[in-house]
């Protein structure tokens, strides 16, 4: 060992606290970098491997094309694996049940073959395969393969329902998403389809892959698939791209890599600041030592080398340890995440991949060492630049420009604390800023995650209470006009007597209703001119709720709409497509099942989405002379613990009623939670990582601020400061830091978080609807900072007292 290395080793050994702090920082940094890198690598690799499992292996689909067009496709060499799928018919039922035909290639390309639980896919005309819940919805329990079922189906809304007898050829695995959605699909054979639908009326969705020789990237995929469609005589409107599959199978995973790099960059910046801080403080304390070395003839280069070796020795311990801990943590969390997503999915489990790659880990090691190098660059310069004479009498506060201080008449603990903070103004500000910045990211994420509101999302389906009973109707069913809204309204299915009965159910706390009208446009003579549409009758609360969710409402309020007999379009996005415009007068006939009223209304605005084609106010409804009938929605609220019994009774009340659906808030909530869970999990993982960095930073800052004042504290105690007063001084300082941190975190984090929320909302990220201030998260953050600061101050003030007063007073002698 040469002299320089020996010096560095001894310096590290002697400054034990500093060395431990730096090693811990390096371990944490390397650990975080390892986790980030292995996660990115793992996600990309896992996505590539599992993309077929998740999204199917087809490049795209052409929808609604005929057999000739399929033949065109088959002639072209670009296409391989062409699979057909066709809508066979809908089944009469309370739930939404449909029948499809698909061929073997489609089963393979869409992974349906992976879902086969037992039996086989249908071959003969009378065979069917579906999930168990499909048959349960039809009223069959405990079915086996080979059992017969019967159902009423029709191929389109112009045909009549026909009773069919079918044999179960196989059962599919249950997928969670579909049970909560209450839509079911059964698959039948080609023969069945061909017998049902005449050759000239057969339209298919075609799933296909492209030949490997076709040059395709995920960005250009859509254009290319459209181009090919046109060559086969298919309209480009019928093209749909399997984006996810193409993205993962053709893309290098740039988004994941960029995201990872961004987080890694933040981690590195924090670590550089933290490690730099500890080193710099250590060097300022030992500046005389380095000055002596210089006086004895050490060159600049040699001094730099001492610091460099000090840093690298510590990295030599910290980096491997961090790498190992990081690998272990990644392995477990990644497996856990995979398990979680598997438990949420039906069908084939995700293939677990090895998330470790030697080049990636080597990169992490290099970056970790680089981080330390960046952190010690400035300390190296400081040491190299010392003049021996200056170093011998170096004092931390020599740079102070002010030489006078107004001061206070009486000086107690409080005045001492404030004086010390203001005298070390630069350090105070740096401390507050570094601590504040590590909290900024937390606040930003909290703004985002805290606003993913499942309940709000679910309330879009079930607006009030726990249950929604609604009419299930068509608007233009020519074959079965009794399915149309005007006919259903006449049945008065959701009449006041039903509402009374519901109110009497044990446990029901509130029942709300909303009326629905059938609207037929007419000409001046009262002759119907077009299709029927639906109208929601809104009270003031509903009106304002819908208004707040976007659309084009201007300053229109409920009272104006009532006074001026306004009518509002229900889907602002489609208004122009349907040929309507603002301030247009429309002549209509409105029906509530009992009476018909001619109504001329002015289109005064449009809601983003009010669930019906049109909206009018409750006041307008009354003015038109309608009675209290025409209820289209009933919301039922009850205590949480009565949910099952109320649901049972509601089902009983509705058993015989066709054209009535029952939705539950809990189901809606589950569906929403299902889709946001993964998103939240990822964000909270990130929050946890940021929490660790914040903690590391804060611990360091407090330790450093106390250690550097060891001597001064000794002096204060010598002239009579009690331990209690000392503790109070630390607490007060910490309090100032906490307040400052919170202010910085809020001042930067809230606007940044709000901006991110707005961006996310404009990009339709899950569950972002209304901005709520993330109060809970911020209160938790403040509480954690406060508690940590109190505990740390306490521990440190105890720790510092371990050294005797005399040792501390003589610290710099």
């Amino acid at each position, binding site marked *: 060992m040469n002299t320089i290395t020996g010096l560095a080793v001894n310096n590290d050994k002697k400054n034990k606290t500093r060395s431990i702090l730096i090693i811990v920082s390096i371990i944490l940094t390397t650990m975080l970098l390892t986790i980030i890198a292995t996660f990115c690598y793992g996600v990309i690799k896992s996505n590539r491997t599992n993309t077929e499992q998740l999204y199917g292996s087809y490049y795209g689909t052409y929808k609604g094309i005929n057999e000739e067009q399929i033949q065109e496709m088959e002639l072209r060499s670009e296409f391989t694996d062409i699979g057909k799928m066709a809508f066979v018919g809908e089944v009469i039922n309370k739930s939404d049940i449909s029948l499809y035909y698909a061929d073997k290639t489609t089963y393979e390309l869409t992974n349906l073959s992976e879902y086969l639980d037992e039996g086989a896919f249908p071959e003969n005309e009378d065979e069917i395969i579906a999930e168990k819940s499909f048959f349960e919805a039809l009223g069959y329990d405990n079915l086996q393969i080979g059992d017969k079922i019967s159902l009423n189906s029709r191929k389109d809304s112009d045909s009549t329902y026909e009773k069919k007898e079918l044999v179960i050829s196989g059962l599919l695995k249950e997928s969670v998403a579909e049970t909560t959605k209450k839509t079911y699909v059964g698959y039948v054979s080609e023969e069945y389809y061909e017998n049902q639908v005449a050759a000239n009326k057969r339209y298919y969705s075609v799933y296909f892959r492209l030949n490997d020789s076709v040059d395709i990237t995920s960005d250009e995929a859509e254009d290319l698939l459209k181009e090919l469609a046109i060559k086969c005589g298919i309209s480009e409107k019928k093209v749909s791209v399997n984006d996810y599959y193409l993205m993962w199978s053709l893309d290098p995973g740039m988004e994941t890599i960029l995201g990872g790099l961004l987080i890694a960059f933040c981690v590195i910046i924090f670590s550089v600041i933290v490690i730099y801080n500890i080193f710099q403080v250590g060097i300022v304390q030992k500046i005389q030592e380095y000055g002596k070395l210089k006086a004895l003839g050490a060159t600049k280069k040699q001094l730099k080398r001492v610091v460099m070796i000090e840093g690298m020795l510590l990295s030599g311990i910290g980096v491997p340890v961090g790498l190992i801990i990081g690998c272990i943590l990644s392995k477990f969390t990644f497996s856990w995440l995979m398990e979680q997503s598997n438990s949420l999915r039906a069908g084939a489990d995700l293939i677990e991949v090895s998330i470790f790659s030697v080049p990636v880990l080597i990169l992490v090691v290099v970056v970790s060492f680089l981080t330390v190098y960046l952190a010690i660059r400035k300390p190296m310069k400081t040491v190299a630049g010392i003049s021996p004479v200056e170093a011998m009498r170096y*004092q931390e506060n020599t740079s102070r420009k002010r*030489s006078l201080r107004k*001061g206070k008449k009486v000086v107690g603990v409080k005045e001492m604390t404030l004086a010390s903070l203001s005298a070390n103004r630069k350090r105070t500000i740096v401390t507050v800023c570094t601590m504040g910045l590590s909290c900024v990211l937390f606040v930003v994420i909290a703004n985002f995650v805290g606003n993913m509101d499942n309940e709000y999302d679910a309330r879009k389906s079930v607006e009030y209470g726990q249950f929604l009973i609604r009419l299930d109707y068509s608007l233009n069913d020519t074959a079965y006009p009794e399915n149309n809204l005007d006919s259903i309204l006449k049945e008065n299915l959701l009449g006041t007597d039903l509402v009374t009965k519901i109110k009497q159910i044990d446990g029901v706390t509130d029942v709300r209703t909303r009326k629905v009208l059938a609207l037929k446009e007419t000409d001046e003579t009262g002759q119907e001119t077009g299709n029927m549409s639906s109208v929601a009758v809104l009270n003031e609360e509903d009106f304002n709720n819908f208004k707040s969710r976007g659309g084009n409402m201007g300053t229109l309020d409920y009272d104006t709409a009532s006074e001026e007999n306004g009518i509002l379009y229900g889907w602002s996005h489609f208004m122009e497509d349907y040929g309507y415009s603002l301030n247009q007068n429309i002549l209509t006939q409105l029906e509530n099942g009992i009476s018909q009223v001619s109504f001329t209304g002015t289109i005064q605005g449009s809601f983003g989405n009010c669930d019906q084609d049109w909206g009018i106010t409750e006041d307008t409804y009354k003015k038109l002379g309608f009675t209290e009938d025409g209820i289209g929605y009933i919301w039922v609220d009850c205590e949480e613990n009565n949910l099952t019994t109320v649901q049972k009774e509601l089902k009983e009340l509705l058993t015989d009623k066709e054209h009535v659906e029952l939705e539950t808030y809990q189901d809606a909530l589950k569906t929403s939670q299902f889709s946001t869970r993964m998103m939240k999990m990822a964000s909270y993982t990130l929050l946890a990582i940021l929490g660790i960095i914040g903690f590391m930073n804060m611990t360091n800052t407090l330790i450093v601020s106390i250690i550097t004042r060891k001597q001064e504290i000794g*002096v204060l105690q*010598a*002239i009579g400061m*009690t*331990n209690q007063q000392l503790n109070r001084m630390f607490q007060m300082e910490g309090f100032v830091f906490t307040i400052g941190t919170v202010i910085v975190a809020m001042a930067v984090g809230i606007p940044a978080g709000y901006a991110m929320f707005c961006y996310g909302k404009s990009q339709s990220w899950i569950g972002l609807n209304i901005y709520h201030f993330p109060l809970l998260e911020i209160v938790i953050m403040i509480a954690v900072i406060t508690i940590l600061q109190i505990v740390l101050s306490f521990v440190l003030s105890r720790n510092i007292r371990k050294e005797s007063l005399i040792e501390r007073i003589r610290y710099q002698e």
Partner: protein
Amino acid sequence: METILRTENLYKTYGSGQTKVNAVENVNISIEQGEFVAIVGKSGSGKSTLLHMFGGLDTPSKGNVYIKNQNIFKLKEDELAVFRRRKIGFVFQTFNLVSSINVWENIVLPIGLDGKKVDETFVKDIIKTLGLEQKLHNFPNTLSGGQQQRVAIARALASKPDILLADEPTGNLDSKTSDEVIGFLKMSAQKYGQTLVMITHDEDIAQIADRTILIEDGKVVEQ
């Protein structure tokens, strides 16, 4: 005359067995009200350790220290801190002023820590005596060594302690300034009727004391 400080078989031992060193060994001395005592000895003779034990900054291995008949090592840690700020004034070789507050604030700090009201007339009188009137708003490190030590003396006197302990107060000063500081120290001790115990290795300074105690290898060899 009243005895202000008294020690009883005072020992301070470092290490054990073969490496056992007696920094202070069986010291029995007593100092009367108003006395100016110089403790003299070579470097490493144990005189600083002895002074630190007088002031409760260091704890003895054996024996007791009484200040005005109060056994100071019978006090709890925080009680001792309170006792120190009320009864003992310290002057250190390295001044040990608090750098973040100004001269006035440094002087009244022990009183402030005690939660007492500052006797302004008294403190201003000390300041005038020590010639610091012009420097009250300065930060300590903008003053010369001699001025800083005068501030330290003012701080030690401000709380009207029973005894003033000075640990080589001139160790960091040139000879001219040393004489000046010692002059101030003696003058103020006399003016305010203070008992002064001072460590020094300077024979000349020791000469002006009422009494000299010589320490060698931790033992009192001459009183």
